[in-house]
Structures are given as C-alpha cells and as structure tokens.
C-alpha cells in the first residue's frame, strides 16, 4: 500500500524533494542533468571543483567558475546501509545504501556527492567500489542523480 512516499522499491530512496529550488549558482547543474549530463563548477582561478555548487571558491575565494562535463564515474568514499526506516512509510525502501562518492576528473574532497547507491546488494558494498551515475527523471524541471556499480 502506498504511504506518504508512494510506491517504493527496495534499495531506492524515494525522491522526497521534487523541486530543485535552484538559484543562479545551482541552476546549471540541473539544466545539464535534464540531458543526463553531470557537470560541476570549477574555479577559473585555481581550478578547484566544488559541489554542491556554491558562490565562493573555498581555496582562493574567487567567484568565477566554468562548468565542466564529468564522466559520471567515481569511487565510493564511505557509505551506510539504512535498515531501519526513520518513517514507517519508508519501510519498503529499506535496506538502502546512502553513500559519499568521489568523482573521477575532480580533486575529490570538495566535490564529493552524497547519493543513494542502487542496483546493488547492500551487504556487498565496499569502500573503494567503482560506481557510475544513473539519472532519474522526476519532472520537467528536475532530473536527480543516483549511482550504481559500474557494469563490467
């Protein structure tokens, strides 16, 4: 029976926020996501990536960025397997994996993504596993990222 979060799939955390609430700083990320492209802002001054997109470079305080296409692959930096639903209506999604991914093509720290890792046996997930992005089309304004193990 569908609860507050609709019909759920085990291992897939439901999209509880269906609006990007974007501002000019974050909008380019979502514009690219609509086309299944992963982009990240890189400081034009010191070339440090930062995610989520934010107004200032934490390394050099510059506000100027260029948006760079990334491959959408990366490595699991850390993770947790959520087994107990914080809300009873989330029970059918559990267990699911929520992790931190370091993205290929970036410096790592400063541009990590916090993502739901799907398509995997939660008990088999390890730090260092290779993962790739999968896009979920939510609505015309929002396509949201998840990751899954890299297919051989």
């Amino acid at each position, binding site marked *: 029976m569908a609860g*507050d*979060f609709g019909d759920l799939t085990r291992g897939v*955390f*439901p*999209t*509880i*926020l269906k*609006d*990007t*609430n*974007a*501002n000019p*700083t*974050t909008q380019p990320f*979502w514009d690219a996501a609509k086309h299944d492209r992963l982009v990240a802002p890189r400081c034009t001054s010191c070339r440090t990536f*930062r*995610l*989520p997109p*934010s107004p200032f470079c*934490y390394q050099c305080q510059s506000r100027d960025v260029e948006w760079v296409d990334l491959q959408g692959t990366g490595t699991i*930096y*850390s*993770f*947790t*397997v*959520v*087994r*107990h639903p*914080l*809300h009873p209506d989330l029970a059918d*999604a559990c267990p*699911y*994996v*929520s*992790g*931190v991914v370091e993205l290929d093509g970036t410096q*790592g*720290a*400063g*541009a*990590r*993504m*916090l*993502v*739901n890792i799907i398509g995997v046996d*939660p008990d088999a997930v390890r*730090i*260092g596993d290779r993962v790739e992005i999968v896009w979920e089309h939510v609505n015309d304004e*929002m396509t*949201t990222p998840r990751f899954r193990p890299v297919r051989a």
Partner: protein
Amino acid sequence: MTIKDRAAIVGVGATPYWKRGQSYPETELSMACTAILAALDDAGLTINDLDGFSIYSNSCDPATVGAELGVPEIRWATTTTSGGGGCAGALGVAAAAVSGGMATTVVTLMTLQQLNKRLGGSAVGGVLGYAMMSDGGGSPYGSSGIPPTAAFTANNGLLSPGHSFAQLASRHMHLYGTKREHFAEVCISTRDNAIKRPTSLRTEPLTLDDYFNARMINDPLCLFDYTMESDGAVAVITTSVERAKDLRQPPAVIMASAHGGDGRWGPALFRYFQAPDEFFTSSGHRPIAKRLYEMAGVGPADVDVALLYDHFSPMVIMQLEDYGFCPIGDGGPFVADGNIRFGAGTIPVNTHGGNLSEAYIIGMTHVREAVEQIRGTAINQVEGAEIALVTGGPAGLPVSATLLRKA
C-alpha cells in the same frame, strides 16, 4: 591573558531525566527554571545574584527565563552557535564574561523536551528538515525555506545525524580496521557505569551478545550505538575563582576552554562530507585539543577522567584519538584493552553513563559529571581525580571542550 584559572563552576542543578516526551506537563521553560534555581541553591546563591546567560544551541530564551524568574538585571546573554557541539565551549564563554568583568554569575544550561521534535525526521516534513540543515544556521529542529543546496542532499536517503556519523564510522573501520566489537566496548563500559546510578534511563546490563543481537539501525550502527532521546534540564553556575572561595561547594576551576574547529568541517555535517581525508575520519576535535592543552599547560596524561560527548559510540573512539589518549587510528584496540573502564582503565570515560545509557541532555550531563568528579562526589568517583575533560560534539561547528580542576 587567557581565561585560564580565572573562573569556576560553583553550582549544579538538574531536573529528573525522563524518556523522550515523558516530562509532560513540564515545559522546556519550567525545566530550565527548575534547574537554574537548583544550581543557584547548590552554590549558596539566589536569583538576585544571577546576571548572565552563556548558553548553546539556543537552549532557552534568556529574556523569557529572566522575566519568569525575576532576574534583577541581565548583563550577559550569549549563545554559542550551532548545536550540541557548543556545550563545553559555553563554559569558556561564561568564564570570559566573568573574567572580563562583564557579569558576575553566569548560568549555562540545556533544557530539552522531545515531545514534538526530534533531530532527524520521523515525518515527511522532518525528513526534509534534515536536508534543510545543509546550509546551516537556524535550529536543527526545523527551519523555514528550502535552500538551493537541499536538492543535492534531500534525495540521497541521509536523514539523520546517525546516518551522517555512520559514514565517518565506516571509513574509520576501512582505514584503521576498527571493528564493531570496539564500538560494543564503548557501549558496554558506558552501560556498566550507568547501572549504578539512579538518574540513568538504561540500567539493564548489556552484554556482547545483547549488542550483536540488537537490530541494526544503519550499518555499522546498531540500536545501542545510538544515544537515546530524553527530556530534562541541567544548569551550572560560573563565577570568579575569588568569589568561589566563599561559596558553598568546592569550586571546579575552569583551567581552559576552547571551541571552534577547522573551518572546512562546516555546518551540520553536510559540507563536512567535503572535508579533506586527514580529518574526515576524526571527531573534528583535534584543533580544540591542541588549544585546550596549550592554554591549560597540561597534556592527555594529566587528565584523570574524560567525559566525552557520546551521541554515537564510534565518535568516542575518534575523540580518544583526537585528545591524544592514543595514536590516531588506534582508538578501537585502545578501548578493547580496557583503557576506558571505570576502576581499571587508564582513562575512565563517561563515568555517569553518558548519552548512551544515562540520558541525553545534549552534553550537559557530561558537564554535571565533570563537576561532581572534581568535587569528589561522583557515584562512580575516580579516585584522586584532579583534572576532568568534558567535550561537546562532534557536530556542526563549533565543537568544544573544557578542562576542570580542583582548586
């Protein structure tokens, strides 16, 4: 000039501790007032002496409390920003107020009633609530408006502090070979301490089998690795060391206090996930430990008892490392060797039963225990205790710590 040895905690007061929501029909205001009056009375002072508030995590509104209790004049009212990480640091702010001549008698307190609120969502709004902490500021228990960063975190399933700290614990296990048995030792030793105390909410014995049979909340954390949720209030009174000499209780002198942390740690753990590897897998306390020991002129070997903020058991292990009780990465084997046990360990930890087994009043139970250890009146009294360490956090910055000593 620093605040070293210039102020002392002279009074402690508390309400009973209750399981979450069971303090009703008390309110957070009524519990705050009860604890403040008890703390003043403990010191041999009255409401007419109170002239300052140094709180954290917006624990109360000094204007409301002042009006309710008829405080004659408020001369100092500050709150340390962010959440529970500021609890020990608020004592340093109180000492700064007193030693700077801004106020004479300053209260630090937490009052907590988790009737309709909890940190981490139990409802749809609450689920989103945690994501809305992504850009910091405001109360962790709710905010208005959804920041643009929320869409980067809300849909990943990371809903609560427990989900966040598990990421640190997982990586600590990965880097250093830390095991669940090590987390279990933190929980079991803490429970053993709680059992002897009438204030404790969890007093049934905890065995290794119990630990491994408990349900997993989110790997690697099981039920017992989590703090409980509870209600109650604890207040302490800080005044100058000169005035402390004339008061009722033996003073617990504030040797040193520090709050803050590496600027990249960030708010509410969301930006924190961007922290460089060298301190991602830490409690965030290393810069605090360094400043604290420098101010006090002592080191970890001089500390007799450690009251370490224990919302999640792995974070006790990382604090033991960050405060220099063992090398970085060795926290697991260090606890497994019995080092944190009351009675036999080299550094007894959370002799009051901690957040894990006594009660969770966002750090103030640790402050209360530190004072009782220095007075020599603790139920699990560390023999000859001269110096006590009390910490706040890890949490969103600031994290904090204070060293108390006998006069």
